[in-house]
């Protein structure tokens, strides 16, 4: 039963038009200002594809090579544009292939609407050809989902879907539409959804919490800000920077928070978490006030919870009330949209500089630099490092590129060393850690922001999970720059095997194909680099290319990512070697 109802008054002032359910689906997308969608056809969604053919001047459909690619592309699109990404698929296997991307979007709060075709309603529940209970399957990984069996319910369901996907804490929704509903004709009328009775996207800020938080911040001797993607999702970068600067507080980021404050900002003290920077991890257990903004204390960030910042008072700026006190007990929870709450707290904050406290971060950075960073980005021994490749990309792109990473060592290295001068420049799979995310996500990112340089960085493992999307790149002429850091290993797993399983490299070595030939097979310009001397020129050539370009860099086989907080350890037990 749908709850979204349109009042009679509104209906009478609009004219309706008799069209099919499938045409209605396309018209709804147009009403929601959707210009690009990603998908893959099949029996149960064919009526919609037929309409897409008719409306191709209004909506550009991108045929990916796998439905998983469609969801990741929609995610990449959403992450860089801040708009809702749309993916469509047929019933059964088409729908189940969407699940990985949906789960990824759910845990990383990415707004996405997935539309799946379904067998005709009289066949539901009969194990008909290509029938799966996609509503049941997707329930745990969607913000909301529903099944539509009547054409007349399509506009209401899609309006609700878009509203839910993008409002409050964003997330993926799925609307499953039976084939008979796609054929049925009805009087079409579209009303955007702006409210749902049972749903409060943005919680009210509890009275007094802003003042209490400000008082705590002003009294702090060693405050630390830890920020996450919430800052980006609520477009609060400016307010955030103003707060950081006025209060003079060192600020550290979670992997999804990266780029909300430029890397070069003097108060940006680096990345938190398992492979984060030494200083912010260590000093988390020394600060007196921990100010969490739009982040959710993921276990990759906190390490051992009962030894996480136990000395500190905790302030949590958060849009999702269920995140407050979930992992870390807070002293003050400032509920609401970060853009609004940060703006409101700014006048209550005293100007400060915390010079001595900031010096502690600089001192620890020096240690990390000597022990880790120097060898990562200015290596002297043989074998290319992942870090120097990232450094070269920084130089050639002037830190302006959007970096889309896959999952593994290269991801951690890219996040550690990439220079992010612009917001929304780090697109990566954080919460789910989905290998295969990078390449298709880069397609979506490039299509959403064609004016930006989009560089996809993958490992040889994850790249091969969605390598078929090279076909999409070629067909769409999407000018993404693809870098594969090839260590002939599932590097991150190999690192763990080395450190925790006595170097027993069980099934992590990869015998790889000729990647250059594969890229060239898809008519994509390609080059392979094996020596340090060739790197700069190759990266320059890649960046200068107007078209898609593939660059394979053979890096040292057994390089490791440090620092590292071993899993289950406290953040202050962070290891430099």
């Amino acid at each position, binding site marked *: *039963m749908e*709850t979204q109802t349109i009042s009679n008054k509104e209906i009478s002032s609009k004219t309706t038009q008799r069209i099919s359910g499938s045409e209605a689906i396309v018209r709804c997308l147009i009403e929601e200002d959707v210009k690009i969608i990603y998908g893959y056809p099949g029996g149960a969604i064919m009526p919609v594809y037929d309409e897409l053919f008719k409306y191709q001047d209004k909506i550009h459909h991108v045929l990916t090579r796998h439905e998983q690619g469609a969801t990741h592309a929609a995610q990449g699109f959403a992450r860089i544009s801040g708009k809702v990404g749309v993916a469509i698929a047929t019933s059964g296997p088409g729908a189940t292939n969407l699940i990985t991307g949906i789960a990824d979007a759910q845990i990383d709060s990415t707004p996405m609407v997935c539309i799946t075709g379904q067998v005709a309603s009289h066949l539901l529940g009969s194990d008909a050809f290509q029938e799966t209970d996609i*509503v*049941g399957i997707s*329930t*745990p990984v969607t*913000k*909301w*989902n*529903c*099944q539509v069996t009547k054409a007349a319910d399509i506009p209401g369901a899609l309006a609700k879907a878009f509203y*839910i996907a993008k409002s409050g804490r964003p997330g993926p929704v799925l609307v499953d539409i039976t084939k008979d509903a796609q054929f049925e004709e009805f009087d079409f009328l579209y009303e955007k959804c702006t409210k*749902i*009775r*049972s*749903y409060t996207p943005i919680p009210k800020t509890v009275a007094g919490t802003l003042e209490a938080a400000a008082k705590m911040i002003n009294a702090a001797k060693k405050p630390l800000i830890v920020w996450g993607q919430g800052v980006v999702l609520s477009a609060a970068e400016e307010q955030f920077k103003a707060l950081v600067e006025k209060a003079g507080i060192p600020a550290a980021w979670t992997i999804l928070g990266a780029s909300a404050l430029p890397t070069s900002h003097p108060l940006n003290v680096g990345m938190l978490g398992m492979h984060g920077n030494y200083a912010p991890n260590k000093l988390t257990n020394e600060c007196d006030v921990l100010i969490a903004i739009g982040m959710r204390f993921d276990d990759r960030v906190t390490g051992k919870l009962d030894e996480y910042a136990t000395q500190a008072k905790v302030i949590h700026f958060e849009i*999702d*009330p*269920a995140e*407050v*006190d*979930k992992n870390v007990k807070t002293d003050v929870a400032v509920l609401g949209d970060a853009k609004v709450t940060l703006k409101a707290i700014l006048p209550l904050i005293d100007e400060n500089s915390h010079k001595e406290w900031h010096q502690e971060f600089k001192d620890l950075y020096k240690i990390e630099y000597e022990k880790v960073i120097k060898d990562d980005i200015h290596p002297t021994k043989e074998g290319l490092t992942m870090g120097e490749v990232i450094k070269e990309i920084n130089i050639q792109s002037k830190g302006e590129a959007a970096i889309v990473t896959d999952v593994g060592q290269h991801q951690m290295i890219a996040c550690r060393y990439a220079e992010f001068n612009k917001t929304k420049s780090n697109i990566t799979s954080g919460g789910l850690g989905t290998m295969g995310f990078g390449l298709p996500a880069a397609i979506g990112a490039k299509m959403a922001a064609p004016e930006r340089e989009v560089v996809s960085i993958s490992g040889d493992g994850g790249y091969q999970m969605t390598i078929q999307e090279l076909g999409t790149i070629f067909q769409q002429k999407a000018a993404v720059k693809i870098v594969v850091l090839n260590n002939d290993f599932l590097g991150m797993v190999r690192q763990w095997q080395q450190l925790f399983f006595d170097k027993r490299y069980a099934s992590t070595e990869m015998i790889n194909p000729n990647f250059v030939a594969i890229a060239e097979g898809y008519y994509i310009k390609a080059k392979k680099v094996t020596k340090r001397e060739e790197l700069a020129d190759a990266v320059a050539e890649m960046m200068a290319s107007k078209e898609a370009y593939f660059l394979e860099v053979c890096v040292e086989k057994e390089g490791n990512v440090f620092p590292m907080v071993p899993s289950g350890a406290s953040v202050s037990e962070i290891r430099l070697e």
Partner: protein
Amino acid sequence: MNTEKQLYTVSIYTENNIGLLNRISAIFQRRHINIESLNISPSEIDGVAKFTIVVNMTEVNVKKIIGQIEKQVEVIKAYFHTLEEIIYQISGLFKIKSELLFEERQIQNIIKESNARIVTVNKEFFVLEKSGRKEEIAELYDELSVYGIMQYTRSGLIAVTKEEMKISALLKKYNN
């Protein structure tokens, strides 16, 4: 805060949507929390359903669960209460051979003393209904089982709170 496990009733007011039961039960399932009993019925408000779920858990965790439940789009409001804070009833049905009713005098006494109600009688069997607290129904079960029970079934717990749940006021606010 109480860190010991105890029985809580979780009352959830929701839009009456297909699929919501799945979403809500999954919240418990993911955390390995066994649902002791579950009842879904219309509430005092038109078009609003009420879930009454009994779980055995700590206060800290039940609070977190409430947060996750309220996060669901179609959930209007969720509350949790200890058993002391509610008035509740459970209903038990007992199917018993009719001959016992006439041959075992004691059974008639049991029925009378337990305040159980005879729902139906026919040649083969009769059906007893007893509403009350869990222990009262368990007690009746023990007493009757001596004579043989053909079928027995018990409902989930249904409850109203001693304190007012301001759900109508809340809905009015949403509607405006």
